[in-house]
């Protein structure tokens, strides 16, 4: 694991190294246009949240970053090179956690390490460290069917971190959790991403989640999706998610972005 000593990093993007770039990206599936004219640069170590109505193509951008398919127009580059084929420098986590039901928590976390061909001892040490990181040390031998939703998510997160991808592609990973558990997971995600210096693309349709997690927030229009607003968070890199609701800047940003999203909903309702 590449540990970084700095717990928090400055959110200024300009002087930081660019990792992912979308240039004039459009994607069509047959006659359906999922996203159109997306331009976005993501810096190393940055957390970007993509928020917008469902079906606006946010997930499409993650899929292209992971190299699951190519854009119809424009380019997606990763670390300066166009993404071609499966991009193994990224790790994916979706709303469904995709744990293997026949493997215990520890064995689930060990999968990527087994694939990488590490030795038994190294795998065990690494898995123990990760279980501690996500607070699951007491559940090493439990099968996923015995775990609560939050514990399953933490297992999936630990598995994601096990192979140490530099970029985490998170597609509404906490959508199915209750509010408290979600806050908990958001808190842990932020801590861990900062600690390990991860770059994160986080898709959500929850505005509060987008504002609290993102260093920058990209607001999408409804389908065909494009970025209608890109906001740099005023909350600071070392924001405390547990206290964030008392911050007037948080409230005003939420309200501002809310107004951006609501008219498009209204249009939809009238159409």
């Amino acid at each position, binding site marked *: 694991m590449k540990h970084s000593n700095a717990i928090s990093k400055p959110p200024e993007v300009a002087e930081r190294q660019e990792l992912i770039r979308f240039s004039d990206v459009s994607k069509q599936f047959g006659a359906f246009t999922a996203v159109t004219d997306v331009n976005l640069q993501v810096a190393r170590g940055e957390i970007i949240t993509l928020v917008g109505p469902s079906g606006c193509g946010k997930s499409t951008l993650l899929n292209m970053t*992971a190299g*699951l398919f190519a854009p119809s127009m424009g380019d997606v580059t990763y670390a300066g090179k166009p993404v071609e084929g*499966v*991009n*193994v420098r*990224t*790790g*994916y986590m*979706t709303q*469904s956690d*995709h744990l*293997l*039901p*026949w*493997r215990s928590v520890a064995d689930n976390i060990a*999968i*990527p390490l*087994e*694939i*990488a061909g590490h030795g038994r001892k190294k795998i065990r040490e690494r898995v123990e460290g990760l279980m501690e990181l996500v*607070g*699951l040390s*007491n*559940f090493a031998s*439990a*099968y996923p*069917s*015995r*775990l609560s939703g939050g*514990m399953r998510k933490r297992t999936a997160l630990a598995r994601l971190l096990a*192979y140490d*991808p530099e970029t985490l592609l998170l597609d509404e990973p906490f959508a199915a959790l209750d509010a408290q558990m979600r806050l*908990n997971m958001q808190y*842990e995600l932020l801590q861990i991403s900062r600690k390990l210096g991860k770059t994160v693309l986080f898709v959500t349709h929850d505005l509060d989640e987008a504002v609290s997690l993102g260093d920058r927030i990209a607001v999408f229009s409804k389908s065909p999706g494009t970025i209608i607003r890109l906001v740099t968070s005023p909350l600071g890199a070392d924001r405390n998610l547990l206290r964030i609701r008392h911050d007037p800047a948080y409230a005003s940003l939420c309200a501002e972005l809310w107004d951006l999203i609501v008219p498009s909903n209204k249009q939809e309702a009238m159409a």
Partner: protein
Amino acid sequence: MSVTGNAVTGKVGAASAPVPLIGRKLKINIGRLVLLAAFLGIWEFASGRLVAEFFVSKPSKIFAVLNEWLWSGTLAFHASITATEALTGFILGGFIGMIMGTILGRSQGLAELLEPFIMAFYSLPKVALAPLFVMWLGIGISMKITLTAAIVFFLVFLNTYTGVRSVSKELVTIMHLMGAKERHILLKVVIPSALSWVFAGLKVSVPYALIGAIVGELIASNRGLGYLLSSSAGQFDTAGVFAALAAVIALAALLNLFVKLLEVKMAPWKTVETQQEFTI
């Protein structure tokens, strides 16, 4: 986050009311025994009084025949032959079915190419192949094994194929992102996740394996439970027929047990799932 081991066990413990589990099981078993005894009693009484004994024999006579076979070694001899045929055919057909199911499940092109042929062969009643196998292999044990294997093959093949097909594509993609090669995906995802389908296929196959072995013996044989059955019938020995049937049932129960034990050993997470309190 302070979660302890108690959280899980506590949840399960709270959900389960103090149900006297053993008492309930005992009650059911007693009920079953009573039912069986009543059935045998009525049979014994009705035979010769309401129905001609020639047609239905009597439980007491059947037990006498079974007892005699048991001590003379007849039962062990014939049952072991049928068991060998059924088990060998079961393992052979099951094994080939699993391998073919996995290969075709993982390669869409091949599956599409072979589909009409497989379906044609599938819709053929496999028992109809018996005369062909007699021509090819004679009336020895290999003919019965082949017939059994042909029957079991399709059941296991189709189940394995469906199981392999139903592996979540998203999951496979996530594995690819972890750097997994086809070999990893096969060993770590596809085969374990298809396993419950495979076992469903194996379980369904147990009675069919016996059909293969016994039909084979009925067609042409001088040994095995099927032979015992047909030779008893040929001598109008009704008690012998029923005794042979009872032996077949016992053999089927043993084979079922074998598959069940295999499943517990191969898929321990299933046991955990079934033992768990049901929640939604």
